């Protein structure tokens, strides 16, 4: 089934934040942000801005009625800089004006004087200076120190991986309307309506029950609107509270890129030990995460880096340590994969390093060390593994050695072009690693015309979650999906939601919806039992809008049944709660069973590098992916293709550039390049893993949002191999992304090169 929004999307009738009709008297906000990465505010002159045409007011920290704090996990982030600034792009003042143009023009008239302090942009520098967000986190399995003694081969190295701009095409924004009794109605482009509600409540001192947050859909998010939508909603909320008028702010692209955080860059040191059978026996890794200037979601991101630091491999002795380093960049945040991909990049680098030194193909080491069912992850969970099955099926389907042979043959006949293949296994845990977040609610109404309205805590952002939820209702009630409408995500209808994140929204909200629908159906079937002759003695069911007794239609249709139930004063609504069973994690021991299940898969990635110009193309990404039992192949295959493109982009052309002063240089679409239609893999081929294994997903249809992004890692290692196929004496550093610049400099940039 296609995404239910498709038709309104192609007709341009879907409503996003900036499309909401404006109320009379609406003011437009514009933020004045710090031009300096670190320093003390000496003077802030608002006089010219305050007097500018159309300006209603200019708001600074001292005007706030509530607390000047938007940190969700750690209280370390002011909404507006008060005395100090901690990153370039940190909001300092809010201009409210009668038009967007006037607000922007006035913001330019604000003058600021800042005494500059040293700006830190590199995580290792922050670590050396003791600038950390929190104490380090550590996972230990076995005894790596002792295990290294017995290893036949030990390799040590460093791997760096850069950040990534989300580049949702719809920028951040909010529209806040004052309500009676001091309340607020908030439209926000957010993945976390409750997070917005809580954050706004803090900065306005308005209780949460007076704050309504409503989200129709997002024009993309990818994690960028999980926590970082809070600031813009809070800015508009403060403006609405102080002015008593509706306030809107839809960020311009460059404001968005400059002021919001991105995927975390990491630097890491690794040490890997293997025995003579090429089994990895020990792995030590230290991660230095570039958190930016405030905690934001950096700590749970850091934790997931640890959770996935051994990817799809079993290593009996692991010591993994992670430091969240505080720098003077915009606070980095969630991004599809949530730290997992960075952890995987480092283990893949270590394996590539070992393979190079041992003169074996990396895929031999990879395959040799895949995790099997019954083996333990460093965090104590026992694997129910599909790592080997997906590898095997990928090899059967795509014939890896023939692909390699073809590449070698091509390379022999080409002077400047080199092809190479990389295999990329993926293992990704599904559930919020913070166990309490794994809960959701769904509100289902059946109306007397037979139509159904569903509300959940899930936010639709293109991933098709509302389509899957509608399918759940369709399935339970056995009605055409046209009878079901999944409505906006609204904090008055569904309270205390977890953000739509961690690939888990369809599972959590889908299961809650399933329960709600089943409870209503149960009550309706009781009524049917009274209406249908002999209905109390036999099993009744509903099929295609009609009640069946055994396999016979009874003539009682859906609408009649619903109305009869209503006349009998039977409740046609249900608000149901779901909490993932069986998961737990104890940080005091760093052990537990945090994931409902894992998603596995194996991709084969082929590239061609133009060793004359340093350009490359990704020729194919062929994968066998563990969908469980997909409930919507249209949506799920779309997630695979999109995830791969984003992962390949991260590993190749997407380069976030800050200068030493902490200014973002890749600050527009002209300087930050995401894949266009020509740069995505020419062929993306996806096959579903064939498996009978049961799982905890909704209808056994495993989460699909994040895992495929990590197939993109293969592009990096394939490009690296192609460079080595051109000149086997080269050993490029592990430093993603592999921009055309790095390719050419790796090829010829060192003395002794051509």
């Amino acid at each position, binding site marked *: 089934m*296609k*995404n239910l*929004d*498709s*038709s*309104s*999307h*192609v*007709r*341009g009738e879907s409503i*996003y934040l*900036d499309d909401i009709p404006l109320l009379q008297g609406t003011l437009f906000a514009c933020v004045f942000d710090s031009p300096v990465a670190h320093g003390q505010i000496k003077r802030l002159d608002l006089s010219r801005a305050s007097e500018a045409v159309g300006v209603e007011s200019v708001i600074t920290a001292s005007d706030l009625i509530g607390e000047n704090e938007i940190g969700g996990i750690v209280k370390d982030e002011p909404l507006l800089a008060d005395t100090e600034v901690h990153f370039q792009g940190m909001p300092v003042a809010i201009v409210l004006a009668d038009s967007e*143009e006037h607000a922007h*023009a006035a913001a330019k008239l604000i003058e600021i004087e800042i005494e500059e302090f040293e700006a830190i942009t590199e995580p290792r520098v922050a670590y050396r200076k003791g600038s950390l967000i929190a104490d380090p986190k550590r996972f230990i399995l076995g005894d790596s120190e002792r295990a290294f003694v017995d290893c036949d081969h030990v390799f040590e190295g460093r791997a760096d991986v850069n950040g990534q701009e989300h*580049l*949702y*095409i*719809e*920028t951040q924004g909010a529209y806040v309307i004052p309500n009676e009794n001091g309340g607020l109605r908030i439209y926000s482009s957010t993945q976390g309506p409750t997070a917005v509600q809580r954050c706004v409540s803090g900065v306005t001192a308005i209780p949460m029950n007076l704050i309504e947050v409503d989200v129709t*859909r997002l*024009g*993309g998010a990818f994690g960028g609107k999980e926590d970082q939508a809070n600031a813009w909603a809070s800015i508009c909320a403060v403006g609405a509270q102080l002015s008593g008028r509706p306030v809107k702010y*839809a960020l*311009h*692209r460059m404001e968005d890129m400059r002021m919001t955080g991105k995927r975390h860059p990491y630097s890491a040191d690794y040490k890997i030990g293997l025995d003579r059978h090429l089994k990895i026996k020990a792995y030590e890794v230290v991660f230095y995460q570039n958190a930016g200037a405030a905690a934001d979601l950096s700590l749970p991101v850091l934790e997931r880096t640890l959770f996935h630091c051994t990817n799809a491999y079993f290593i009996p002795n692991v010591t993994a340590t992670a430091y969240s380093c505080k720098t003077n960049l915009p606070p980095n945040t969630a991004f599809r994969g949530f730290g997992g991909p960075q952890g995987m990049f480092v283990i893949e680098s270590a394996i590539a390093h070992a393979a190079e030194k041992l003169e074996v193909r990396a895929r031999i080491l990879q395959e040799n060390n895949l995790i099997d069912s019954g083996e333990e992850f460093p965090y104590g969970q026992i694997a129910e593994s599909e790592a080997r099955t997906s590898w095997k099926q990928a090899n059967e389907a795509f014939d890896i050695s023939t692909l390699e042979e073809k590449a070698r043959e091509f390379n022999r006949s080409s002077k400047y072009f080199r092809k190479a293949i990389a295999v990329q296994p993926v293992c990704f845990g599904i559930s919020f690693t913070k166990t309490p977040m794994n809960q959701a609610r769904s509100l289902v109404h059946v109306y007397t015309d037979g139509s159904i309205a569903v509300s959940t805590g899930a936010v639709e*952002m*293109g991933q098709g979650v509302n389509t899957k939820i509608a399918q759940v209702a369709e399935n339970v009630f056995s009605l055409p999906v046209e009878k079901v409408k999944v409505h906006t995500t609204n904090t008055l209808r569904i309270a205390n939601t977890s953000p739509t994140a961690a690939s888990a929204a369809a599972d959590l909200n889908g299961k809650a919806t399933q329960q709600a629908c089943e409870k209503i159906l149960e009550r309706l079937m009781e009524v049917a039992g009274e209406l249908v002759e002999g209905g109390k003695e036999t099993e009744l069911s509903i099929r295609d809008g009609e009640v069946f007794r055994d396999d016979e239609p009874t003539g009682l249709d859906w609408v009649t049944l619903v109305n009869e139930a209503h006349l009998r004063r039977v409740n046609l609504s249900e608000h149901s709660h779901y909490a993932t069973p069986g998961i737990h994690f104890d940080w005091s021991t760093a052990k537990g069973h945090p994931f409902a299940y894992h998603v596995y898969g194996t991709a084969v990635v082929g590239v061609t590098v133009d060793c*004359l*110009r340093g*350009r490359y193309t990704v020729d194919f990404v062929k994968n066998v992916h563990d969908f469980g039992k997909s409930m919507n192949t*249209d*949506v799920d295959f*779309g997630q695979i*293709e*999109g995830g791969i*493109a*984003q992962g390949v982009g991260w590993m190749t*052309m997407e*380069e976030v*550039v800050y200068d030493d002063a902490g200014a973002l*240089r890749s600050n527009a*679409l*002209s*300087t930050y*390049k*995401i*894949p*266009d*239609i*020509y*740069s*995505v893999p020419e062929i*993306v081929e996806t096959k579903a893993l064939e498996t009978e294994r049961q799982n905890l997903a909704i209808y056994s249809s495993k989460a699909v949002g994040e895992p495929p992004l990590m197939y993109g890692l293969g592009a990096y290692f394939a490009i690296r191999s192609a460079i080595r196929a051109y000149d086997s004496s080269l050993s490029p550093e592990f430093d993603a992304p592999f*921009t*055309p*610049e790095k390719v*050419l*400099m790796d090829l*010829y*940039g060192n003395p002794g090169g051509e």
Partner: protein
Amino acid sequence: MTEFLLNDETVETGLPAGLTVLDFVRYKRNLKGTKIGCREGDCGACTVLVGEPTADGIRYRSMTSCLMPLANAAGKHIVTVEGINPKNGELTPVQESLVDHGGTQCGFCTVGFVMSLTGFCLDDTEKDQAMSVSAVDGNICRCTGYKSIERAAAEIAKRLSGRDFRKNLESAVKAGVVPKYFNGIESRLREIKPEITDKTTGAVVGGGTDLYVQKPEEMVSEEATHVLYSQQLRGIEEIGGRVEIGASATVTDLLESQLMKDVFPDLFFHLKLVSSTPIRNMATLAGNFVNASPIGDMTVWFLALDAKVVFDSGRSLPLRKFYRGYKELEKDALESITRISFVKPGKGFRFNFEKVCKRQYLDIATVNTAISFEEQDGALSKVHVSAGGVAPIPLYLSKTSEYLDGKTISAATIRASAEVIDSEISPISDVRGSADYKRLLLRQLFKAHFIEVI
């Protein structure tokens, strides 16, 4: 007053001629299907179709409305998605195909793709898979990974294979690609009499593709003369052994010119490296020259043709003498370019254009370079080499050109010329690459010239 057709409606507006079509349709006409993604022509979410009456029917081209001043809409048919939506919630073949192939996820970029592909249907380009992809080369999508969009585009191409709606809008209407009212557009457009001003005031604006990126706010109210559709500044023709090009010829005009195709056999593949379809539809040649970007693709291209620019003052100048320093031109403030010309090459003419950037297409060059020469019995003559991204100006490599003149091509010549190039350039490190990289890259691309050409 600016007068034009917006979908099925005649618009007369006194709003500033510098206001963008994007802001006009969204905020003055409440047509919210056209989205704002970047406001710099780099994402295509705001793509609209612009219909211009020609001698043989209307020609529709896709353009990014964020960079398009209202003035450039005068006398045109501006089409937004609301102007092609069938009644009763039905879908056009383009829309249907995108839905069927799952070519929309979050939906925010989708309308841009719909408009670009509708433009593809209405144009007379080859209806094949490659051209259908080419039609959306200016549209960025962050969700789908494009494969579903490719499949949708390929299906559209297949359905329309062999059909040409360009000169036969009625058949496009019959096929449901556009609504019925399109049949009457041509005659309605011809009734609109454009306001003619012959005096030049303020900045000269062509396609707006640079000025609206550099200073969007100022452009709205700034006094300007809009020349994109100025008849006397268009046209590409051969006059007296020279190829003469009007200053407001767009890159697409070059791409479609038979004369240019004859001179440059690889024209399509080389110009494909330059920005994207909607931008090529707007960006003018003279605009690229005057913008004086050190990495202007067309400037580097024409430097290697040793082109000449002619001003409205009557003065003319070799393009290589047009640049005094970073964004400093050998031009009077009131002067504007009217024509560009170069000698139509003779036998043995060779030309190559190379460009490397982070993303191969729809990107600004890190380094670009062009070369032209004539070759006879291995010996080179009339050599002109240019390079961008390696100096404060788009650079004519005069010493290298001179050095190569009369030489025969060999590995030794190429190596020796690389030394000369090195002495002529002064790249700096920036977001597009380090100085060392740019130096290395130019050396490699220079080598590539000879691999491609010989």
